[in-house]
């Protein structure tokens, strides 16, 4: 479940079966759900990969499902499958953050390619997400004085200047700076700036 895979939500059994077969032919793992409710039940924070969601279903519609996922904070890319004539609706979903949409009948390999891209994006996102989490975790361990020093460092000021501005001794600045670099697991100020660019 937590391994990246395509989550296929469609109330038509034939479509589910056919798409699963197709994805399998391109070596993409997938799970199928007969309704939006089923998928939402199964969803958790760690669910990864992408969602292929049918717009028109009995029970909850694809769009409602998408809205619920957004409110839950899911970042999973969503590819909508729409019927003929649903295109304006699909475009609206794109604006609300959907990954893509396909009109049935679709060019299947294009769909698979987009699924792969979506999964890749999710994976990258997840990786970045992990880095940011780590930086934030390191930042949270800094004292207020260390954070003050960090701001000054990031502004490109020398130790002496910092000591003058904060009315502390050079030495004290150096100690704080060493602790800061240690806690942030960086060796240079440039490295620190790069890390923070990612995390904040």
């Amino acid at each position, binding site marked *: 479940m937590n391994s990246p895979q395509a989550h296929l939500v469609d109330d038509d059994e034939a479509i589910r079966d*056919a798409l699963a*077969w197709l994805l399998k*032919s*391109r070596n993409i793992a997938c799970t199928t759900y007969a309704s939006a409710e089923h998928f939402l039940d199964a969803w958790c924070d760690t669910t990864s990969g992408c969602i292929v969601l049918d717009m028109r279903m009995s029970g909850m519609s694809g769009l409602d499902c998408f809205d619920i996922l957004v409110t839950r904070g899911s970042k999973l890319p969503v590819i909508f499958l729409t019927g*003929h004539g649903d295109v304006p609706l699909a475009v609206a979903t794109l604006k609300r953050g959907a990954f893509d949409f396909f009109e049935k*009948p*679709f060019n299947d390999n294009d769909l698979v390619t987009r699924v792969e891209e979506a999964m890749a994006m999710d994976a990258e996102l997840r990786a970045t997400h992990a880095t940011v989490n780590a930086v934030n975790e390191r930042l949270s361990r800094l004292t207020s004085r260390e954070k003050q020093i960090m701001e000054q460092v990031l502004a490109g000021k020398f130790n002496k200047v910092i000591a003058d501005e904060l009315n502390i001794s050079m030495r004290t600045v150096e100690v704080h700076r060493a602790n800061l670099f240690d806690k942030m697991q960086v060796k240079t100020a440039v490295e620190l700036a790069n890390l923070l660019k990612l995390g904040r």
Partner: protein
Amino acid sequence: MQTLPTLPAQPSPRHLQWLLTLPKLGVVLLMIALVSLLWLLHKNEAEEQRAALIKDVLWLEQNLRFHLSGNEEQLQQLAQEMGTTGDRARLFRLRASHLLKNAPEISQLVWVDRRRQIVDALPGEQLPDQDLEGFGPTATSRALDLSWRLDKPEYSEAFFVEGKRAYIEFLVPIHAERKIIGALIAVYPLDTLLNNQVPWWFTSKYKVEIVDDNNTLYASKTNIDGDSSQLYQIPLEPPGQGLLLRITSYTSPDNTLQRLLIAAIVLLAFGVFWSLWLVRDLMKKRTLAEDALRAEHAFRAAMEDSLTVGMRARDLNGKVIYVNPAFCRMTGFTAEELVGQSPPMPYWAPEHLAETHAMHDAVLAGEAPSDGFEITFMRKDEGRFKALVYEAKLIDGNGRHTGWMASVLDITERKAAEELARQQQEQLQFTARLVTLGEMASTLAHELNQPLAAIASYNTGCLNLMRSGRAQQDELLPALEKIGVQAQRAGKIIRRVHDFVRRSEPKCAPCALDDVIDDCLGFIEADARKRHIRITAHIPELPPIPADRLMLEQVLLNLIRNGMDAMNDTPEAARELSICANANDEEIRVSVIDRGCGIAPEVRDKLFTAFFTTKPEGMGVGLSICRSIIEFHRGRLWAEEFSASPSGSGTVFLFTLPLKTP
């Protein structure tokens, strides 16, 4: 065109009035002539009577005078002889008795002397008016004076004795030696005079009276009573003295008869006049009746001419006796060509001759269907037309059955119109199906997209496997089989759409209602799913019904879709549409029950009216077509409120279908 006798031309009212006045004038003139004739007769008769009267009177007067003159002479002779003879007493006695015997009208002969003393008298010795002497000179004395003075015989005035009898006296002076020595007096009682001198036949005709100037009656004689008609009087000379002889004639019994005759004539004349009056009244009434008849005739003619229904009358033998203009227009023959014709009629179509003849015979036998029959007739130009004929008995004024009257309707156009209406109805139904399908197009496209998308996916998957060289037969086979299944699924959808819009003649074949409902649900399922409506069908085992499957499908689809539309605002959980069916011996009843908004009362009446709709994009033909379809199947379609609805409102549409064809 008419075969009825035409009425004679009406004489002008003035002419008629003249005709009516003439007999009246004649009667009046006749009456005048009669009356004048009677008057003339009467006048003649009166004149004759008067002439006879005068003649008789003159005769009577003459007779009286003759007698009196004779008596005068005898008395004068006696007086002369008494003057010359010595023995006057004996002579007087002798002659007087002799005289009295001969002249019975003389009641007494008296001889008086110069001193007016009675010397002798026969019979008796007293003068009748002696008693009156005390009142001055009596009539006798006055007469004596006059006679002696004049020395000639003289009559006295008439006088009454004791108020009873009237008398008159004749006095003759007696001379002796040139000296008057006395007088002879003959006393005539006037009644005796009349009794003796007027003969019986005279008195049976007349009344004889002696009167004076003062109309004092002295004596009268008559044998008859009655009304007097004529009167004649002449002076009685002698004796003069103002006495008058008055004769009155009486109306004879003959006269009464005559009057009766006149009365009868007058009466008869009145009778004639009265009867003429009656005749006049009768004629007036007759004129009025004729006017009414003429008006009625004109009215009837106008009615016949304005009729578009052909009328044809036949006698009991089947001979045409009357046709109206509409019938002539219909057949193209003139009335002259048709009236008098016997079967086969010129308007009978030769190819239907036997059939027409059979119907003709049936009509004559009184067995024609009372609700009319259809038959093909031929126009003069050999064109054919369908006619609807109603036959009725022709009854004359006396209540006798004299023939048959038929009203004939040309129903060719009506038939054509019916056919056109039927075609239009079919066209409308077809259009409605197309409209339904159009409204469902997006759902159907989605529906069709599902299997197509599945097929495409299987197909691409297979290709992917084969290109990568990893393809295993047992891996590919199930996918290919699934492709086939999905293709069939798509085909089924297309077939259903095609069936639904197929244009075909309505045909009533036995069909299973559950199959029809299944088909409908197949159509509607996707749409219902999209709208989160559950459709449940409770269909028991039902006998097949004779109906057009496509039409039923159309009705059901329409009712289901209406129900679904009605539930747009119903909470999702309550959106349920159920279809129920049950059957009894005669019919199947199907209900489509929704839990929607219900039907507003003001809408309910117009629900089945064509082009009435509550939907913004609706045409308003759905329910009206549904009803016409159900009625075509001789069923009924109506709506009821779904009072037991869990959502609080809803509608039940029900229709029935008979299990048997008529």
